[in-house]
């Protein structure tokens, strides 16, 4: 065999390794939270939960749908939620985003109410899920999590982790505003770029 053919033969281990490296690389970045939730494209599961402020008022799945909205899962024991809260307030104030708050297995009702009184309440409706029933149905992994639901009540997107300007601009915002556009609702001037 000539030196050239020998070199080619001896390159086999390198080729094999590179193939393997591709899979390792992909494996490294296969973030489980990125995979589609089993619920995307389906309706929000049915539920019956009390209101956070008024224990005797209950809400069910009928509050979902009718217009695009976010469902935000939060709790007072979750430091990331604290960081996220300012941004949610800003979303309400500047873009009038419709958000349903799902308080998830909190320490107590009182703690959750105090939190909203101290930090402001960005939620149109507040659900109190003490046992985590709805969260379990939604497949919530931890708090915070945010679901985008369209006017038909279909889950369009799920974001694990906190919402912030970057996430809103690149991931969640476009889905929300596209749903807004489909239902013929108004989109704030400075967010038009998200649907273009």
């Amino acid at each position, binding site marked *: 065999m000539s030196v050239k053919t020998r070199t080619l033969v001896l390159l086999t281990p390198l080729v094999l390794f590179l193939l393997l490296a591709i899979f390792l690389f992909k494996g490294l970045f296969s973030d489980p939270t990125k995979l589609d939730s089993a619920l995307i494209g389906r309706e929000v599961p049915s539920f019956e939960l009390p209101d956070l402020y008024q224990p005797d008022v209950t809400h069910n799945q009928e509050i979902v749908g009718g217009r695009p909205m976010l469902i935000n899962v939060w709790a007072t024991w979750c430091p990331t939620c604290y960081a996220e809260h300012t941004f949610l307030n800003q979303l309400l104030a500047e873009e009038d985003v419709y958000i349903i708050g799902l308080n*998830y*297995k909190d320490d107590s009702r009182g703690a959750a109410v105090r939190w909203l009184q101290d930090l402001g309440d960005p939620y149109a409706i507040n659900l109190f899920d003490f046992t985590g029933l709805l969260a379990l149905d939604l*497949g919530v992994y931890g708090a915070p999590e945010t679901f985008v639901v369209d006017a038909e009540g279909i889950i369009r997107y799920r974001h694990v982790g906190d919402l912030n300007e970057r996430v809103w601009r690149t991931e969640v915002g476009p889905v929300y505003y596209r749903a807004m556009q489909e239902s013929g609702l108004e989109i704030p001037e400075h967010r038009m770029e998200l649907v273009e």
Partner: protein
Amino acid sequence: MNPRRKKRLIMTSSILVGAAFATGLVLYALSQNIDLFYTPTEIVQGKGDNEVKPEVGQRLRVGGLVVPGSVRREGSGLTVAFNLIDVGPAEITVEYEGILPDLFREGQGIVAQGILVAPNRLQASEVLARHDEEYMPPGLAEALKGIEHVPPSQQNYNQNNDNQSNDKNNGAEEEGSGGGYDR
């Protein structure tokens, strides 16, 4: 044929035969021993776009959360049965004879391996939980992403209704052989 050629021919062909034999063996053994991973919902409703349901008698792995209150011992022996759930509402029942792992608790994510004895009943040969408190079985984390999340203030030690915390910080990686599953 000169002796050198002949020698080379014998060497090459025996290596080829050996390689073919080894590949065949590996493929055969693989086909016997690959266990597909299912979630309870996938067992009940079918997996993938074609909604393929596993057959009764198939060996498989299932991962899910132990439904609180569903753990029961059957008879006076050591058979235990419990229900597993993922996104709901589908539940399957797992039967297991033997000692559950130390970290087996209600509400905890576990993986059971065994044979499907009825469309929603698994006879488990093995039940795995992870030693790492913050662990979620890999297959489960992907298929399910739902696990009970308990505020740290509610964590307390009680074997019957202890919940698992899934704090978002890094768990200690275990080093060394054998580190890993708890049976």
